C-alpha cells in the first residue's frame, strides 16, 4: 500500500511539474513618461460664457499634470452631459481624458454636471453634479477641477483652497504689510488687517475659521489669533518675552510657538481651550520654527544646538529629540507635509537660499529650487505642491525688488508664479475647503 501511495505521489509530482512548465510570456516594463496628461474639455455652458470652464482648465493646467488641448482641434461637438462620446474622434486628437458636461442656472442656483472619460480605454471614470449659489460659481469650478484631478491622479485635489499671505507695499523705509487671503488661483483677494502694524507668518487653523500670526501690534511683538469672519484678533497667552513662529496642531486645539528670552528661544504649546502653556524644549540654544506631523505625534523644529542651525524631531511631549539633517549649510523653517512623507525646509548654503524636502528619517534630501532669497515653504493640502516666496534684488547691493509667490511641484518641476497685485510673502496654504 505504501509503495502504491508513493507511486501515486510521484505521479502527482510529475504531473504538477509538467503543469508548471507551461509558462506564459511575461514582460517587465520599468519606467514611464511624466508628461502632462492631454485632456479635452469642451465648454460646459450652452452659450459662449466659458468662465467656469476656464477656471477648471486653468486649475488643471497650473498643476503641471494636465495639458489642455485647444478646442479648435475637436472633431466631435459635445452638447449636454448625456451625449455619448465618439472615442475615435478624441483619440485622433490624442486626448487621453475627456471632460464634458453642462451648466444650468435657475433660482439663483448654478448646477454643474460633468462626466470624465478615459478616451483610450473607452470607459467612464466619473460622473457628478454640483449645485451651489450662483455667487459661488468659482468654488463650483474649483470643485469640478478637484474631482477631475482626484479621479485621474488618485491624489486629493487642492484647487478649492485659500492662501493667507503678507501683502507688501511702499518703499523699504516705509513698508506697509497687510495680512491678506485669496483663492489659491489669486482670485477673491481680501485684506484682514489695515497695515498699521507689521504682521508676519500667518497660519490657517484646520477649520479655516481662524488665522494665527505674528505682529508688532502696539509695539509688542507677539503671536495673535484672528477670527477670519469677524476680523477680531486676540493675544495668544501671557508669555514673558517675544512669541513668534506660531502654528496650529492638527486637531486645531493647540498652538505651538517659540518664546524668546534670556538669549535663547524655546518651544511651547498653548492650549486654546484650557489656556495652559507647556514648555517642550529646554536648551540654551535657539529652538524655533516648530511644525507638527500630520498625526500630531511628533514635532519638527530647527535648532543650533549642534553649532549651526539644523533640523530636529521630537515627540509631541518634548521627549526623544534627535537630529535629522546633517548636510552642509543651515536649515530653517521646516514644515511637515500633510501626507507625512516629507518635511520641507529652507536651506542657506554658499550665499544662496534653497527650498528642499527631506524624509522624516533624514534620508532623501532634495533641493527643488533656489535663488537670492527663497523662503517660507507651505504645503498644499495634498502634499504634492509647495508655495513659497521669491525675492530678487533690483539693485546690485542686494536691496530693492519685489517678493512674489510661487508654487512648485515636489518633483522640482512646474514652478509657477501666483499673480498678486503687490509684493507678497510668507504664504500659508489652507486645508481643502469642501
Amino acid at each position: 500500500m505504501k509503495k502504491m501511495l508513493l507511486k501515486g505521489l510521484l505521479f502527482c509530482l510529475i504531473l504538477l511539474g509538467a503543469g508548471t512548465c507551461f509558462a506564459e510570456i511575461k514582460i517587465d516594463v520599468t519606467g514611464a513618461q511624466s508628461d502632462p496628461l492631454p485632456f479635452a474639455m469642451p465648454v460646459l455652458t450652452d452659450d459662449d460664457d466659458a468662465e467656469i470652464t476656464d477656471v477648471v482648465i486653468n486649475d488643471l493646467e497650473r498643476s503641471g499634470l494636465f495639458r489642455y488641448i485647444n478646442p479648435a482641434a475637436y472633431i466631435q461637438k459635445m452638447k449636454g452631459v448625456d451625449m455619448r462620446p465618439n472615442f475615435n474622434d478624441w483619440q485622433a486628437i490624442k486626448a487621453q481624458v475627456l471632460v464634458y458636461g453642462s451648466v444650468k442656472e435657475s433660482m439663483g442656483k448654478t448646477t454643474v454636471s460633468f462626466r470624465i472619460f478615459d478616451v483610450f480605454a473607452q470607459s467612464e471614470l466619473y460622473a457628478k453634479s454640483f449645485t451651489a449659489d450662483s455667487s459661488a460659481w468659482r468654488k463650483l469650478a474649483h470643485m469640478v477641477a478637484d474631482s477631475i484631478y482626484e479621479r485621474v491622479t488618485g491624489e486629493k485635489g487642492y484647487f478649492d483652497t485659500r492662501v493667507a499671505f503678507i501683502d507688501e507695499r511702499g518703499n523699504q523705509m516705509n513698508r506697509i504689510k497687510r495680512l491678506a487671503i485669496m483663492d489659491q488661483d489669486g482670485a477673491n483677494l481680501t485684506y484682514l488687517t489695515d497695515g498699521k502694524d507689521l504682521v508676519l507668518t500667518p497660519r490657517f487653523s484646520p477649520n479655516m475659521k481662524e488665522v494665527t500670526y505674528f505682529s508688532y501690534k502696539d509695539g509688542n511683538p507677539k503671536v495673535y489669533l484672528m477670527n477670519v469672519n469677524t476680523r477680531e484678533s486676540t493675544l495668544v497667552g501671557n508669555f514673558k518675552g517675544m512669541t513668534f513662529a506660531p502654528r496650529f496642531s492638527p486637531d486645531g486645539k493647540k498652538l505651538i510657538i517659540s518664546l524668546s528670552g534670556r538669549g535663547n528661544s524655546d518651544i511651547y504649546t498653548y492650549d486654546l481651550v484650557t489656556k495652559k502653556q507647556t514648555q517642550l524644549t529646554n536648551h540654551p540654544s535657539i529652538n524655533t520654527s516648530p511644525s507638527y506631523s500630520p498625526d500630531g505625534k511628533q514635532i519638527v523644529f530647527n535648532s543650533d544646538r549642534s553649532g549651526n542651525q539644523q533640523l530636529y524631531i521630537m515627540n509631541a511631549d518634548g521627549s526623544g529629540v534627535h537630529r535629522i539633517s546633517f548636510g552642509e549649510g543651515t536649515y530653517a523653517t521646516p514644515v511637515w507635509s500633510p501626507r507625512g512623507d516629507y518635511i520641507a525646509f529652507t536651506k542657506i548654503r554658499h550665499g544662496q537660499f534653497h527650498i528642499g524636502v527631506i524624509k522624516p528619517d533624514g534620508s532623501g534630501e532634495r533641493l527643488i529650487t533656489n535663488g537670492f532669497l527663497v523662503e517660507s515653504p507651505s504645503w498644499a493640502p495634498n502634499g504634492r505642491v509647495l508655495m513659497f516666496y521669491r525675492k530678487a534684488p533690483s539693485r546690485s547691493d542686494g536691496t530693492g525688488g519685489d517678493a512674489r509667490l510661487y508654487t512648485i511641484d515636489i518633483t522640482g518641476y512646474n514652478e509657477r508664479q501666483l499673480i498678486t497685485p503687490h509684493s507678497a510673502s510668507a504664504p500659508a496654504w489652507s486645508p481643502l475647503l469642501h
Partner: protein
Amino acid sequence: MSGLYDEQAFVERESKCLGLSVLLHLFILGIMCFNFSWNTSEFEKSPPAILMVDLTNVKIADKTNLPPLIKETKKEEVKAPEVKKEEKKPEPPKPQPKKEEPKPLPPKENKTPPVKQEAPLPKPEPVKPKEQPKKEAVKVQEKKPEPKKEPKKEVKKKEPKKEVKKETPKPQSKPAPKVAPKPVPKKQNQGLQSLLASVEKVRKPANQAPSSAPASSGQTVNNGIKGGTEGSLLSDLTISEKDLIASKISSCWNVNAGVENADKMIVELRAFINKDGSVREVKILNMKSDPVFRSMAESAKRAIYVCDALKEDSPFRILANKRPEMYSSWKEIRLRMNPVDGGVY
C-alpha cells in the same frame, strides 16, 4: 484443507488488493485531472491550456522531424477533400462557358438575398475567379484565423488541382520506378534490397519534402520543423524582443510624477492581442482600493491602448509582423509594470 483454505483466502486478499490499487490509481488520476482547475487563479486559467499545446508539439519536433511531417501530411490529406470540394465549384466555371453558369446563379441570389449573404460571394467566383476567392479568403480569415488560413493561401497562390496532383502522384510514381529497376538486375540480394527499400521508403518522404518544397509544400515543411501545428521551438520571446515591447510600452505610459511610493507600485496586466497585433482587451490583475494605485493601474492599462493606437508602430503589431508563427504564445501577454526605472525586479 486448512492450507488450501489459506491459499484461497490469500488469492482473495490479493485480488482485493489489486482492485483497491486500481481504484486508488484511478482516484489519483481523477484528482490530477481536477487538481489544476483548483489551483488556477483568475489570470492563470486560460494560458496553460494554450501553451500546453505548443510545448508538447515542440517536444515532439525536437526529437525528430518525422512525426510532425507525417501527421501534417495526414492532416493535409484529410483537408484535401475539403479543398477539393471547395475548389470543384470554382473549377468548372473556367472551362465551362460563362453564359451557362452565371445565368442560373443570379436568380438564386435574387430569391434569397437577405438569408444567405455569403452565398452570393462564391457565385461570382466563376465570373472573376482570381479576385473573388481572395475576398472570400480574407473574410474567412477574420472569422477563423488559425486553421483555414493555410489551405486558403495555397488556393490563392496555386490552383488546387496542381497541388493535389503533385502531392499524391510523387510518392506513388517515384518509388515505383526506383524500386522496380533495382530488383530486376539484382535478384540475389533480395533481403538486403528489401531492407534498403524500406529504408528508402522512410528516407524519401523526408528527403523529397525539401526538394519538392518550393514547388508544392514549402509551408508544411516549416510547420513540421516547428512542431506540427503552429509555434516554434522557442515558446518564449527573445530578450531583445521583450525589451523592445517593454520600451515601447514605457514610452506610451504617462504617469503622474511625484506619486508617493511609486517605486513600490507594480501593476500587473494581461493584454489580449489579436492575430493582427491589435489589442482586444486589457485586464488589470491586481487592482487595489487605494485611489493612487487605481490611477496608476488605469494609466498602465491606458498605455497599452495608447500603444495600440500607434498602429504600425505598436509593439504588438511589430510582434505580429515579425513573429506571426508564435501567435499562440503572445496572444496573451502578462505585463508587470513599474513607473520607476528599475523598480520591477
